[in-house]
């Protein structure tokens, strides 16, 4: 079993790493090393059963969301008042909402919104966080203390509250949600990367690179960053899960994605009324389950990545 697994994993990807030996030039060795590493990361990731299940579910969710028109009979906006508030039937497998729209169809289209908010928002703050963290950790001094005080300020805000405040000022919309989460989420990434840079920047390989005349930007982004990226990838993965939860919460409060666009969070808004809660569970249970499943899958993937990217970390 173990042998079988390792064979599949080391197959085509590992050959260049195993082939050329010390006689090869420096550049070949340089390109071979990350490839070997990638192989072993995937192998370790595969061993994390929950992460693998999470990845499978997430891919499935992405496919049905992107390909939503293929899997639904009704459009997410097609109103049919004659069949409003109906329980699950053969035509509407998850029933219909007060406007007679198909819940199943809205559920799939909502996946597009929720998943993309998570990914875009985290992409924004990861880029900001990486740049600020790299600059702070590399240059130190007053640049470092200015950036870190700024991070302290942003971190000291109760995040949901400040996001609600900014969204209310800018006006709630899909774009603003991504922007606000993206602009306020960077401090943890910055702190992480700064710490990594501080511990790496005096190491021999950096001193060597500097001696060869590498400029600061090259040192930061070609030499230091690849060695410090692992915890950032893990943090960003958990970040996507959190961003999806945040978007869901905001949309649930009516401060996020605006109707008629469906989002998992906004589909639950109606359940604040006791009649919906009591007698129309098909309206609020499926979107809630979808959020939980998507977030749980991403969290498992994050956990798998954490184990896979850091072989020295004790579980």
């Amino acid at each position, binding site marked *: 079993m173990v042998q079988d697994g390792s064979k599949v994993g080391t197959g085509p990807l590992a050959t260049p790493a195993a082939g050329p030996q010390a006689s090869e030039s420096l550049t070949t060795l340089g390109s071979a090393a990350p490839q070997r590493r990638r192989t072993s990361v995937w192998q370790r990731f595969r061993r994390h059963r929950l992460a693998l299940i999470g990845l499978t579910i997430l891919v499935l969710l992405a496919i049905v969301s992107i390909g939503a028109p293929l899997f639904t009979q009704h459009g997410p906006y097609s109103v049919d008042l004659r069949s409003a508030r109906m329980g699950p039937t053969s035509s509407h497998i998850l029933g219909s909402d007060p406007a007679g729209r198909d819940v199943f169809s809205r559920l799939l289209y909502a996946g597009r919104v929720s998943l993309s908010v998570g990914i875009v928002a985290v992409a924004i703050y990861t880029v900001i966080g990486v740049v600020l963290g790299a600059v702070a950790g590399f240059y130190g001094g007053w640049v470092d203390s200015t950036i870190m005080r700024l991070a302290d300020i942003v971190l000291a*805000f109760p995040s949901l509250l400040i996001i609600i*405040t900014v969204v209310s000022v800018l006006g709630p919309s899909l774009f603003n949600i991504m922007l606000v989460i993206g602009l306020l989420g960077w401090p943890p990434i910055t702190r992480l990367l700064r710490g990594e840079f501080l511990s790496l920047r005096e190491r021999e390989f950096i001193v060597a690179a500097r001696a060869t005349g590498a400029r600061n930007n090259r040192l930061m982004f070609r030499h230091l960053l690849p060695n410090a990226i692992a915890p950032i990838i893990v943090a960003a993965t958990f970040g996507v899960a959190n961003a999806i939860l945040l978007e869901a919460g905001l949309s649930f409060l009516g401060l996020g994605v605006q109707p008629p666009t469906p989002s998992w969070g906004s589909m639950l808004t109606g359940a604040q009324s006791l009649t919906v809660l009591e007698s129309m569970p098909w309206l609020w249970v499926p979107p809630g389950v979808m959020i939980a499943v998507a*977030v749980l899958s991403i969290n498992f993937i994050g956990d798998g990545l954490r184990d896979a990217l850091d072989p020295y970390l004790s579980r």
Partner: protein
Amino acid sequence: MGQYILRRLVISVPVLIGITMAVYIIVNLAPGDPVTAMIDPEAVINLGPEWVEDQKRKLGLDRPLPVRYGLWLSEVAQGNLGFSFNDRRSVSGKIGERIWPTLKLMIAAEGIALVIGLPIGIMSALRQYSKGDYIATIFGFTAISIPSFFLALGSIYVFAVVLGWLPTAGMRTLGTDPSFIDSFKHLILPASVLGLAQAAPLIRYSRSSMLEVLRQDYVHVARAKGLRETTIISRHALRNALIPLVTIIALDLPRLFGGTIIVEQVFAWPGMGTLAIAAVRGYDYPVIMAINLIGAIMILCSNLMADVLYAIIDPRIKYT
């Protein structure tokens, strides 16, 4: 020690000032101005633009932003948080009556989180890689992955609607005399929903902290002396494993505060969260600013508390 606390306090001051600036700037980005916000749009048309300009001058709104910020800050420093746009009541009065319910909810939630989180975390460390450990990990991940409002709605459905054991919303039954049993019943659901989400990081960190301690030499020494396993765990390992958790609890308070906002909304809990949502929906900026400020101060205090408590509990920490 005193010097250490002082230094931490001094570092917090620029952060606090930065927070006030950020809040002030964000709120000033809002469209419209207090004059047009406070009076009937029809009346504005009748009174004419000159009148509006005149009022703005009287209120000092024609002055540059930094000057206005300075004036506002000096008022806030004297405890004047302004007046609500909606009902003209003082913001400090409004918040004063809301802060206790929120604190009550947060303390109850953190208590539940500790009662759930610590035993599970420690048990899974003691039986590492067992089935129970595996289940505890999945439980922890599930607890942070279910959105709090969904859990809240689900718990209302099960315990209030179907079973009828607990009330659906509010802090006490209206029209009855306040009694301990009644308010306790109202507290159970919101505090449990919040507590479950807070328990997840506690499970994770108490587990890894316990594993770390169990590997230490002094635990091996205790074993070698032939002490009973329960004594080793409770007297030697547990006490040391709990130290880092002080920091985890304090640093996780912002998340608890965020969770409180949503959970209060679902349970119609008369706290700061429902006040904040109402203020945001009604564009009541003085209230929004005040709640942000108080939230930020709470978080700064809890961070400070974490540092200080950590230094007190663990004498190995150097005060630098």
